[in-house]
């Protein structure tokens, strides 16, 4: 097919897309694209959505005390390690702040849970959570962080910590640093040509014989589709 015509089309969008990846390795076709996060609203928003997001972003739910407590808690859940940052460094508390407003059902369990942490600390050590030593803090956390081992009267605390763990983890692993840590490779134009051979081998898989000739071959991706009278697609190399 006509390459020039394709190129014309290709750049009508603001973003070069995968029209002509046929003969290039995927690495050659990385999009030039820098994500924008400021303001929290990006393209692809309706006016209604922009207003909702702007409103939520301009409001504050967590007070200073709560934020400080969360800073400590989320870094206990997701600390830094040799090659990745901690939850606070990845902006997890800002994310939690937003989710409190976006999903108001979180508000009472979060506010109440953080308060309960102080009550529980008071009852056991005569001090609020933030005033506890590191090891005292960890004693409290250990009472609520292990759902299968926790005492029955800690059920509420366990629930609170489960919610916190979910939010801290999801807030962390949906950042650039989190993606890197997870090893997710994707969200970029590429050519899917099946599971890599060594992975197939490791799991003992072979592609079904029956479909070997049916599956897409990367080199065909530039050719205009045509069929014979029996509705068989015409393959250039068959």
């Amino acid at each position: 097919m006509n390459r020039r015509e394709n190129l014309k089309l290709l750049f009508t969008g603001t973003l070069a897309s995968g029209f002509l990846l046929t003969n290039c390795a995927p690495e050659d076709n990385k999009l030039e694209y820098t994500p924008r996060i400021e303001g929290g609203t990006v393209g692809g928003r309706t006016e209604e959505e922009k207003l909702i997001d702007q409103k939520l972003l301009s409001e504050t739910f967590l007070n200073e005390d709560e934020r400080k407590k969360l800073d400590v808690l989320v870094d206990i859940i997701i600390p830094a390690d040799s090659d990745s940052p901690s939850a606070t460094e990845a902006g997890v508390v800002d994310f939690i702040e937003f989710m409190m407003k976006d999903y108001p059902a979180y508000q009472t369990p979060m506010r109440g849970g953080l308060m309960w942490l102080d009550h529980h600390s008071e009852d056991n050590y005569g001090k609020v959570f933030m005033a506890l030593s590191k090891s005292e803090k960890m004693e409290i956390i250990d009472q609520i962080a292990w759902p299968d081992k926790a005492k029955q009267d800690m059920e509420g605390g366990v629930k609170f910590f489960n919610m916190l763990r979910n939010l801290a983890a999801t807030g962390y692993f949906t950042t650039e640093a989190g993606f890197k840590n997870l090893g997710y490779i994707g969200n970029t134009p590429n050519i899917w040509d099946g599971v890599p051979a060594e992975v197939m081998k490791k799991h003992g898989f072979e592609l079904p014989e029956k479909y070997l000739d049916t599956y897409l071959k990367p080199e065909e991706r530039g050719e205009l589709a045509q069929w014979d009278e029996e509705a068989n697609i015409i393959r250039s190399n068959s």
Partner: protein
Amino acid sequence: MSIEIKSSSEPYDVIIVGSGAGGGMASKILSEAGLAVAVIEAGGDFDPAKDEDRTQLRYPWESPRRGNGTRIRPFGDFDAAIGGWDIEGEPYTKGKDTSFDWFRSRMVGGRTNHWGRISLRFGPNDFKRASIDGLGHDWPIGYDDLKPYYDKVDKLIGVFGSKEGIFNEPDGFFLPPPKPRLHELFMMKGAKKASIPVIPSRLSVLTKPINNDRGVCFFCRQCNRACQAYADFSSGTCLVHPAMKKGKVDLYTNSMVRKVTTDDSGKANGVSFISKVDMKEYKLKARVVVLGASACESARIMLNSKSKSHPDGIGNSSGMVGRYLHDSTGADRMGILPDLIDRERYNEDGVGGMHVYTPWWLDNKKLDFARGYHIEYWGGMGMPSYGVGFSMDTMRKFVKDEFGNPSPNGGYGEGLKKDIRRIQGSTLGMSGRGESIPMYHNYCEIDPNVVDKYGIPVLKFHYQWTEHEIKQAKHMHDTFEEILTNAGAVLMGEKPGPETKYGLATPGRIIHEVGTTRMGNNPATSVLNSNCQAHDCDNLFVVDAGPFVSQADKNPTWTILALSWRTSDFIVSELKKKNI
């Protein structure tokens, strides 16, 4: 596209209400025949190639909620369905003891911007179910009537798949399908042990170009966000916008049709609609009116179109408008594959949907329920989004150390962080989507007590599943467990029992609602004739899923497209003959 509202003095040849699958196809075929067409769409314009509409290739951190769903986009912050189950100012109501959920998109292209692209033809049996099992009714047309149109849709729009020669899963003009992903190979293994077929899926995604106007798939697994290369089918990108470029098509966006207007003889002569921009009512005239507002919404418009000649609503002299509403059945199950914990990392995005599926493979004569289902597979290593890292309080135990000891559930710290990484991409699951029995007593009607914010009376739904659907869901769950277990997966969650109808989804939830303006040869028991023309109004047609007599164990959209093309051809020929 800017909003374009005008009171037109010159009548159009055809007014099409709605720009989804049905309306989009009609706009293309009718305008190519040289007719002057107006498309009236309740939502705004949408073009995924424009940066202001594009959500494709965005990362979760570009969303303050990291891709979580909202009221406006329940399937995620980047999903290309603007609307949802619960649209501000556009309520619907339910009868006593009814649960029914209604999903609507308000945008050019309707729900085809984010649909799953599963593009299955109905088979010969699917048009004649009553003859086979005595339940429901046969269609007045058969597979042979639609086959030429399915063929044309395949070539015009593109669908990948494999020729299989299965009688009731007719083959088409397929593009080459992509190879299976790793979790799909596990599913194939599990199904094979249970003698359940798994074949390449059939999705309207261009693995090869079919013309010079659309690009080819670059495997981002985000068809639900709509494709900026137009490499998947959306009605806006593939039908409506191209029709506007080539033919006499005016697109009226943000325009909510209230009713079909009629002349003294009862013939349709146009529509009246409310502009969302100034909240004023406008009228447009045309020789022919085509409804493609989606099955329930078209029924609503017809029921609201009362006049002296149509006292119960236009097309409703049979009282059948809204009746026989039915949706596909659905149930799902999930598991975790120990073999995939610590899995290799590579780009496994693939296309925006499954690469393999299971068509219905059994004979209902040997089963205790009447109709079949197909199975859709999901899982593996997709792009993480809101929800990643959740549920470690119950799932962490699936990760084992080098001595085979499971990690404790819950926890915190570096160990937790590592385990979240290790478990990533190891869950998988499947969904059954099946055929239900169309019932007279399942219906939507106008709720006389409630109007939407445009002052238009809203729909009220009445729906109960029958024994057949409930037993089918039970069968699905038995099958799911067998496949997952055979694949080496550990089942997650509990197997649902009779108290939840075996996990059978609430009616409407599968978003395959059809049948509300069904076709038939008898004007007393159907709304439309076999050409989707209203029995009691010659120049009124329906091109969405309303005309379906029964919704097969396949997804409906390929059939909507084929039927709409066929109906459009009929309109052109009737206009030529001056019959309408």
